[in-house]
């Protein structure tokens, strides 16, 4: 009892801090061999020849594979079910490399060190092809971007246009029109654990894949497509994961490991180095945006006209969803009578983009929230007031998909957050004029809960009572370190009168679990949590019926609490009930449910930042921070706060430091190590306050909705707005490097 809304420690926390949890790089198997990749130093080139003689001569080297010796099956790493239609443009190793860091070959050897040495001993002859290294260049040259089969490698890969209301009339009637250009950088996930995968032959000619992934079924679908191995012959298991943030949503190594394991009949493991993780996996797409806002004198947004150009890099992955996703989030925040949106995604010869916490949201919110602040300044209206005048009300219908935003509490986040931050008094403070200048900024944000209506947004859960009184929960669960397993266990335990640690959770295994979309799209708590709650209710019903028999009582009068089945007549533990049933040869109570979502409510947030800018050095210190979040209800306030703290850390980096910095002339990544890629570390973190708005979402489990992705969405614009407030500037190119700040003064 009392498991929901409690600060329950992570159910795998002790194992983690005790160093007992085995991550993929800790796992070994008898006879296991190691792969190392050869990566392209060129942004766009034909691989003419490959000389592996020196590599093969090294003792311990087993073999080398490249495009001439692997199946040339094109695939898309972002698909999440077998048969999903997508732009199939990627191959394990292709005859043409399309970015610095693209895969050229793999060496397999007895040890990882030998494999790395052998990879370095391989010489490759390239014939350079013209490279497109910036989104501008890509946009200026629509059409084919080099050899490859249409529709792949044609720009733009997606173009979403949307008009709502009458923007032209609204712009003509506006009291003020403000235009702002915003660019956001290509950032990297920087999970502590680099990408890794292990594959090995299993009984019956099948291949097992152990992978720190976000969906075992996505791995199955992608590997099947890339290797030609039937998906039924692929058994995928999720390993513990040392951080993903979306970076491991798309299988990168899995097809190669599976292919090699099948070819060699041996366990094959590949663990990337830090540099390889930077240059050869995924990033957050860079965006260039332009927003024109038509305002009334009173601070109402009359219309917006948005143009967004997204650089998805060398392979489509899921990049063609980005313009639409960005639009989906853009139109859920404010009540805007007229909207025009033009979003394009283009290929360039740069590292591919992919899922990353927020999936387009940080980009589009940076554009919209920085633009709105600059418009507010011209109107002389306080940034909080202007947001209060435009935020959507609960149960509003958004104009793009026509969905209700549910019990969305953006306004509560804003007004309660502003009060707690003491916004008015701080805003009224006289502007600093000396070397150090303080400023405050606010940004609002919204995010979705799950994939409805875009996909079959459903999930299945099985639960059963085990001998001993524990309850087993089986679903395709992928805890990425955020604590989703703990949250789901709390939900199940609440219904069953147990404690979270009495719920046994099996990590996702494609042989054991019913299909699920995976950990993505802020769907774990809201969608899977509701599926778990419903299954737990069904199981509770079963248990009560059995307990009623055992207690000689009416099932309606049996309660489940404190690990007991109780009635006026007596009580028994679930363990005793299980024993009682086993003694009678009965099957233990079990239940399974499939829950299909019928809506997609919004989560909301308002973030408040105070910064101090050193106008001599250009250094920005974030000195105070408050995050107000509409989470419906926090199943576990401690984990919710943890998600928000981490979101702020990523957001500070996005605002101030992070950029993989691809050289527009050479295509080389300049920041491909932690020495060059600056993350916000502990010293840069401000004191953090979290305010939870818990007004309940009727369709969510116990009223809960998502927080994982939205936590990072408003951070960068809040900080940029604070810097612009401090300096009276219009800075809008992220990150705000000291050079950029000084140039604006």
């Amino acid at each position, binding site marked *: 009892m009392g498991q929901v809304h409690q600060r329950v420690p992570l159910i795998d926390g002790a194992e983690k801090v005790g160093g007992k949890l085995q991550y993929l790089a800790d796992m070994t198997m008898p006879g296991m061999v190691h792969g190392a990749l050869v990566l392209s130093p060129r942004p766009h080139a034909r691989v003419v020849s490959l000389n592996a003689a020196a590599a093969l001569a090294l003792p311990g080297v087993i073999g080398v594979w490249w495009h001439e010796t692997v199946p040339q099956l094109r695939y898309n790493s972002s698909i999440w079910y077998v048969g999903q239609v997508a732009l199939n443009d990627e191959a394990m190793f292709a005859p043409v490399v399309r970015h610095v860091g693209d895969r050229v070959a793999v060496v397999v050897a007895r040890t990882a060190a030998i494999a790395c040495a052998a990879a370095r001993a391989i010489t490759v002859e390239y014939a350079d092809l013209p490279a497109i290294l910036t989104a501008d260049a890509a946009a200026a040259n629509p059409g084919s971007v080099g050899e490859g089969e249409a529709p792949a490698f044609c720009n733009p890969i997606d173009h979403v246009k949307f008009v709502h209301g009458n923007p032209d009339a609204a712009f003509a009637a506006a009291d003020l029109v403000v235009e702002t250009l915003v660019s956001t950088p290509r950032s990297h996930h920087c999970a502590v654990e680099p990408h890794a995968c292990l594959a090995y032959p299993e009984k019956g000619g099948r291949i097992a894949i152990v992978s720190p992934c976000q969906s075992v079924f996505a791995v199955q679908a992608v590997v099947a497509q890339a290797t030609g191995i039937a998906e039924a012959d692929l058994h995928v298991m999720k390993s513990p994961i040392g951080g993903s943030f979306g970076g491991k949503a798309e299988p990168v190594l899995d097809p190669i490991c599976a292919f090699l394991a099948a070819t060699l009949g041996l366990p094959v493991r590949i663990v990337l180095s830090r540099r390889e993780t930077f240059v050869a996996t995924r990033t957050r797409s860079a965006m260039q945006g332009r927003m024109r806002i038509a305002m009334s004198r009173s601070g109402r947004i009359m219309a917006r006209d948005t143009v967004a150009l997204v650089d998805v890099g060398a392979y489509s992955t899921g990049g063609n969803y980005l313009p639409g996703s960005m639009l989906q989030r853009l139109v859920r925040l404010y009540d805007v009578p007229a909207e025009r949106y033009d979003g394009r995604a283009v290929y360039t010869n740069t590292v591919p983009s992919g899922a990353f916490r927020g999936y387009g949201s940080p980009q589009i919110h940076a554009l919209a929230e920085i633009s709105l602040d600059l418009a507010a300044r011209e109107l002389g209206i306080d940034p909080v007031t202007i947001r209060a005048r435009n935020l959507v009300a609960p149960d509003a219908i958004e104009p793009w998909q026509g969905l209700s935003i549910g019990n969305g509490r953006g306004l509560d986040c804003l007004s309660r957050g502003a009060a707690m931050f003491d916004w008015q008094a701080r805003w009224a403070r006289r502007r600093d004029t000396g070397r150090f200048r303080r400023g405050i900024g606010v940004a609002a944000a919204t995010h979705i809960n799950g994939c409805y209506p875009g996909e079959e947004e459903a999930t299945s859960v099985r639960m059963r009572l085990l001998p001993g009184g524990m309850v087993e929960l089986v679903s395709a669960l992928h805890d990425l370190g955020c604590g989703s397993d703990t949250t789901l266990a709390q939900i199940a335990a609440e219904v069953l009168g147990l404690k979270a640690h009495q719920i046994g959770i099996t990590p996702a295994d494609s042989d054991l679990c019913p299909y699920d979309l995976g950990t993505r799209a802020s769907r774990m708590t809201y969608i899977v949590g509701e599926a778990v709650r419903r299954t737990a209710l069904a199981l509770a019903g079963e248990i009560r019926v059995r307990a009623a028999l055992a207690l000689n009582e009416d099932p309606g009068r049996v309660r489940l609490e404190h690990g007991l089945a109780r009635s006026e007549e007596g009580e028994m533990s679930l363990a005793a009930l299980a024993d009682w049933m086993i003694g009678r040869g009965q099957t233990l109570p079990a239940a399974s449910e499939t829950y299909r979502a019928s809506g997609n409510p919004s989560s909301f947030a308002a973030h408040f930042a105070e910064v101090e800018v050193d106008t001599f050095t250009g250094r920005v210190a974030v000195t105070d921070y408050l995050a107000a979040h509409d989470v419906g209800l926090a199943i576990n306030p401690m984990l919710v706060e943890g998600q928000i703290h981490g979101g702020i850390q990523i957001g500070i980096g996005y605002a101030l430091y992070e950029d993989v910095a691809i050289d527009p002339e050479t295509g080389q990544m300049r920041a491909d190590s932690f020495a060059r890629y600056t993350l916000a570390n502990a010293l840069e973190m401000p004191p953090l306050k979290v305010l939870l708005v818990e007004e309940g979402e009727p369709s969510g489990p116990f009223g809960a909705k998502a927080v994982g992705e939205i936590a990072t969405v408003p951070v960068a614009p809040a900080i940029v707005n604070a810097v612009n407030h401090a300096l009276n500037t219009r800075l809008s190119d992220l990150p705000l490097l*000291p050079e950029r700040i000084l140039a604006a003064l």
Partner: protein
Amino acid sequence: MNMLTVARPRSLDAISALMSDGRPLHFIAGGTDMLIAGRLRPKDGILVDLGQVAELSGISVVGQHIRIGAATTVARLAEDPVLAARLPALSQAAAECGAVQIRNRATIGGNIAEAAPAADLLPPLWVADARLEIRDHDGSRLVAIADYIASPGRLITAILLPDPDPAPKSGFAKLGSRRELTISKLNLAMLMRQEGGRIVDLRIVAGAIGPRPQRLKLAEAALGGRFLSPKALQLFAKALSDEVDTAIPTRSSRVWKRRAIVGLGYDVIAAMTGHSPRHPLFAGAA
């Protein structure tokens, strides 16, 4: 026989013996520069671990000098009370090197021998006119830090700092992409005395605006001999910016560094004179 062997001598004499052995010597102290991934490692000769030689470690006052063993860790420098009183610029630079884990291993000798353009300990050692005690197969001698050139087999055994009484004022500031665990894009050390309020014997050295630390004589001249006043500081600021223009005329970072150096200069002066950098004295922008 072309192989790298490892020696863990326990005394300077043992190192001298190795020096006459004839094989190439490679010294390793904290290993924080030498062992990082991607660096070329020596393939033959003797890798000499300096970590076991007690004589190479520690800080002592010897006559008119402070003597710092070359294998003294950066963490020791940062917490040493004598240094904090006599050459705070060096304590501050040590405290801002890397992060705790790095400071616990990194040594002052390694920082000097590695001689990275951004090395944080070098500007303080330059302003203090440090001399290095060097030993090689030809014997031992003293070399001014500005004249030191690293070369294989040449061991720094100690750093000697002049220790005048009263001690001069000194300070250090650096600028990287964040506050801690960051390589300097610019660093600055200053040393001076005050005579009746006048700034005298001023020495200023900047790092990361050239392959080696740069003595900023224009800036020294702008402030030297003057009282601390807004006017003097303005001249000083201009001179600092001019120094950057001269040092890196064509680099894209020039525009930023020519202004940032003023921030560092003001920070150091403020610290040396017991002011806050927010004091109105420093408000006048460059």
